[in-house]
């Protein structure tokens, strides 16, 4: 009897992520949601530019590779063309919160019926550890070698809070994947973001606080602790907007 197996909607391709990176967990949670809801045959994913650029090789459903930041626009086109299909994007912080900010905000305000998985690890991973829009004040990166100085580099962008101020989006939540309890909550939340789309509710975004041991310069273990000590205090977890719950409640 198999008690633990790879989700069916992940391919057999070997992931290229660094040791200790939490992208693997998040891929698995997305795939588990797709499996549980039985939507692999209808799903179309949009991969970003960044560490998850090759996600199109890892998800077994149909996939499209978008230009940097443009995934919500690409997903909009796909969903408008095929409204019965399930369309999701998987994007990092540079992609979604910097270069793709306009596409993100406008897909949200149109309440496009898509699911957005937003991986926030406070750094540009693929290009080798530059300051991200979500890097914390004082955080040392390759392009903030003396620590992020908010006087010159500005403050981190709190995407969940920012988007939840819009009238458009259906569901905005923030989760983390640094311990078992948080992973369980993340799994439930990601599944809900897909259920919302199936039920025609509209734009659902889950921000996932993630780690980058390589570019943070930490062991995987220390990176998970750094999330508890530094990331979550700045980026509190929870549901920021849930239009249907508000209506029902």
């Amino acid at each position, binding site marked *: 009897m198999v008690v633990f197996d790879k989700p069916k909607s992940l391919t057999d391709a070997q992931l290229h992520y660094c040791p200790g990176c939490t992208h693997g967990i998040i891929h698995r949670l997305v795939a588990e949601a797709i499996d549980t809801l039985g939507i692999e045959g209808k799903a179309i994913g949009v991969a970003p530019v960044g560490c998850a650029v090759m996600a199109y090789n890892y998800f077994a459903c*149909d996939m*499209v590779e978008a230009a940097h930041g*443009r995934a919500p626009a690409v997903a*909009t*086109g796909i969903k*408008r*063309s095929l409204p019965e*299909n399930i369309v999701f994007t998987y994007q990092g912080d540079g992609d979604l919160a910097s270069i793709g900010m*306009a596409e993100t905000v406008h897909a949200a305000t149109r309440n496009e019926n898509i699911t957005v998985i937003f991986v926030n690890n406070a750094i540009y991973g693929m290009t080798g550890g530059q300051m991200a829009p979500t890097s914390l004040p004082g955080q040392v990166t390759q392009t903030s070698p003396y620590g992020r100085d908010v006087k010159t580099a500005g403050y981190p962008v709190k995407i969940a809070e920012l988007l939840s101020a819009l009238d458009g989006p259906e569901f905005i939540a923030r989760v983390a994947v640094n311990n078992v309890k948080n992973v369980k909550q993340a799994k439930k939340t990601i599944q809900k973001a897909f259920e919302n789309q199936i039920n025609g509710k509209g734009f659902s975004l889950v921000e996932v606080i993630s780690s980058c041991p390589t570019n943070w310069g930490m062991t995987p273990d220390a990176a998970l602790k750094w999330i508890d000590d530094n990331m979550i205090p700045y980026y509190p977890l929870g549901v920021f907007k849930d239009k249907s719950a508000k209506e029902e409640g």
Partner: protein
Amino acid sequence: MENKVLMKGNEAIAEAAIRAGCRHYFGYPITPQTELAAYMAKRMPKINGTFLQAESEIAAINMVYGVAGTGKRVMTSSSSPGISLKQEGISYIAGSDLPCLIVNVQRGGPGLGGIQPSQSDYFQATKGGGHGDYHLIVLAPSSVQEMADLTALGFDLADKYRMPAMLLADGTIGQMMEPVVLAEEKEISKVNKPWAVTGTEMKREHNIINSLYLAPDELEQKNFERYEKYKVVEENEARYESFMMEDAEYCVVAFGIAARVSKNAVVAARKQGIKVGLIRPITLWPFPKKAIADAASKVKGFLSVELSTGQMIEDIKLAENCKVPVELCCRVGGMIMSPDEVLGSIKKLMGGAK
């Protein structure tokens, strides 16, 4: 009996696109192509289609990329500064081998330029425009009728060769009204698109729409394959109109609104006994090289008439291969030459040519 209607060029594009089976339009407001978007905004909701005013030109072209990936006919339209913004997406669409139609109703540049007609995006349209090695099929309408006809042709060629097509119009043809006969709405010729992302339905391997190839040998191979396809397009799809070329001693080359002006100049010159003809490229890529090369062995000189400081003239020179002189007659910035100015340039060419 043919059903003639009076339409603006921009509206003719929109109606022709709908009749060619396009049900998805994404755009962003910009002069002088606005009528096209306005027409789509009215019509698309009535025929179960998509009209979406995107947050930017960049978003619009990426929405086009999304729909094109699903295998449906899709288009966007803009004018010069907006087309510059779309170049990122156009490069991705070309690099992913997707069909779509992009309309550029050109205005004067560079920068914000002006809002009057221009042809100064010739290089951008025919030499790639965005990053990387690629081409678009570029169609240059010279009348409102051609706005409609070449729109339909653009969709067909894009599907046939699995590459983006561009309708390179100008503010004059976009804004002016002429009688036009619109084709009946037809069943889209069923082009098989097994590569499209439509959901696997658990019946096939997953399809991936992508332009990333990290292995250099693989990327090289992809580029070479695409250029093999481009060769076929160049061999089969070059289109042009030849006017009074049979006995011509001089050849005017012009497209779009500049060709309309040039035709009047050719007629005026003929009345004065000057043996001059016109070659009007209808496709700018592929450029009608053979027609120019053939003419080069018969005429004493070429005159390129353009609303740019001389862009198409380079393609004329490449095609005629230094056989005879090639001169330029141009106005830019939204100005249009008069037939008299073209006639003057023809006479100047005659004086200089040996």
